[in-house]
């Protein structure tokens, strides 16, 4: 197993393409920064697709709602303590709403944290930052590409879950369902409301994605990257039990997960949803900015 030294180096001619800035004549293609990010983004998505945890989450999103519907069918008890709980046997539209109300506040943040909390710190774990940072991609492109990949996963998983939830509900029955204002909501309008309610929780999910990324970048550790959103989710649940002032409630990233209640009232109100958008946006921006600031000038490797 030798180095075949007698055949070095003799590079084959590079393929014709836009040349670099008249510099060293390296790789013949010098793509612009946006397509550089896109390259990293596509590579990261490919890496994600091969991950076991990603496939597991996709499978859960695909079959979960149908399993829940089947489970509800075989017994007559109804989920208590949650809005729409008592209607699950009466109308299929209640089922996606129960899933959203019951599981949304912790399942969704954990689901995105499991991927986003690892995508950066995995490189620390394998020591491969120095390998990928010494290629023709800047730190900004690598950061943006990985960030976008995490956001893409979160959004795609949400979309899949929304579709399967709605389908499972439609299969269970399209009878009108009683809204939160006591009004009877016919099937067409109920479909819209289910869709809009589910879509309304995408912003806080993206907020949790950014939080997981910040935790993993700052700690260089996947356990912390995934654990911080999980712990915060629990902390938020505890905090809602305390009588916080209105602004205190609004600042928690768990609050936007219940903003959809207003859509089902009569007359519908969107105040909590709009404030929820602001809350999610602030969390997203602060966490993303903080992650970038930590990353951009950090020392890579054990050099000391």
């Amino acid at each position, binding site marked *: 197993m030798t180095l075949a030294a007698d055949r070095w180096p003799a590079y084959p001619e590079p393929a014709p393409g836009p040349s670099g800035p008249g510099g060293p004549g390296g790789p013949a293609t010098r793509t612009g920064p946006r397509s550089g990010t896109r390259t990293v983004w596509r590579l990261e998505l490919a890496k994600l697709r091969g991950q076991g945890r990603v496939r597991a989450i996709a499978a859960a999103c695909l079959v979960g709602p149908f399993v829940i519907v089947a489970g509800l069918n075989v017994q007559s008890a109804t989920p208590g303590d949650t809005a729409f709980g008592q209607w699950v046997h009466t109308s299929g539209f209640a089922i996606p709403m129960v899933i959203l109300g019951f599981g949304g506040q912790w399942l969704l943040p954990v689901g995105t944290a499991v991927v986003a909390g690892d995508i950066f710190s995995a490189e620390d774990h394998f020591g491969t930052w120095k390998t990928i940072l010494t290629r*023709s991609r800047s730190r900004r492109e690598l950061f943006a590409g990985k960030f976008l990949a995490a956001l893409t996963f979160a959004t795609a998983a949400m979309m899949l879950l929304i579709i399967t939830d709605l389908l499972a509900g439609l299969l269970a029955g399209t009878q009108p369902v009683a809204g939160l204002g006591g009004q009877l909501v016919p099937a067409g309008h109920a479909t819209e409301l289910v869709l809009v309610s589910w879509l309304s929780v995408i912003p806080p999910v993206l907020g949790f994605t950014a939080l997981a990324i910040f935790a993993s970048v700052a700690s260089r550790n996947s356990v912390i990257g995934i654990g911080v959103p999980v712990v915060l989710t629990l902390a938020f649940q505890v905090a809602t039990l305390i009588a916080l002032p209105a602004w205190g409630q609004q600042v928690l990233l768990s609050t936007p997960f219940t903003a959809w209640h207003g859509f089902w009232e009569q007359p519908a109100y969107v105040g909590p949803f709009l404030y929820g958008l602001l809350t999610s946006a602030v969390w997203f921006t602060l966490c993303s900015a903080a992650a970038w600031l930590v990353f951009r000038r950090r020392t890579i490797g054990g050099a*000391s």
Partner: protein
Amino acid sequence: MTETTGQVVEARGVSKWFGETTALDAVDFTVSPGVVHGLLGPNGAGKTTLLSALFGLVLPDEGTVRLFGRTRAEAGPGWLDGVAGFVETPRFYPYLSGRRNLAVLAGLDGGDAASLIDEALERAGLADARGKRVKGYSLGMRQRLGLAAAMLRRPRLLILDEPTNGIDPAGIRDLRTALRRLARDGVTVILSSHNMTQVEEICDAVTVLHQGKVAFAGRLDAMRADAPDPVWRLRTSDDAAAREQAKRTTGVKAEGRDDGGLVVFAAQDRLDDYVLTLARDGVAVRGLELDVTPLESLFFQLTGEPGDRPAGPPGRERPPVTEEPPVTEEVP
């Protein structure tokens, strides 16, 4: 407007400190094109930090670093175009095969790097192991994969941090030949090591770092001219007489060793005269070995190894070159 002096690497006044520790102290580092340049120093001298600064893995607190005449800010994402190599042991994704790892890296580079993968693997001698997961690679195999990954970028500047680490002597010879061929074709090579002997045989120029400062920088022949006498180990039939004779011979210094025999400090020609004189006096030479080369002794002089002998301490322990040196965990 970039100032181009034609140098491949130009680092000026580079300083970096980590908390209380100064890793680099106003280091000037210049590498000319087409040269094999050695970066030398004991462990902890700052070699890895300096090479990391070239790659942008470490951002200096002071000073500028120019590659091909451009600083990182001026060049943007294309700063490392034509530059390749690795710092400390190359690391890869252990759950992917060697080939897939290179495919990921080629994907990051863009262009037609992917078409070079198979050839690079062959040249690195990893054709058989290409499908195996990197998790099962030995240290030597990972070094080779690191070289293959570097060659994918068609580098004009190759930066290698202790590349002979974990490679057997035959592999080291191959590496040496390969690097010399690269230099002949105009590729600039920077090679770091703590072992002067290896560097001596392959490098044209050398920079010696000691505790973060540059102790010496220049061409190797200039260094040899400055170097003190080599150190020899001598066993004779009559050590006492040999010592007496050394006192009478100019340019030769001899001292006794604890375990018998003599340590002799002399240039080659003086030594030849000395040995002939010994024979004439009836003292037989039973063993004569070169212990420390001139450059090794200069190196130790520059880096202040313990011991007060001007030409290097006798009986110094030569750092062993083993197949699998301990791999230290990188501290984040």
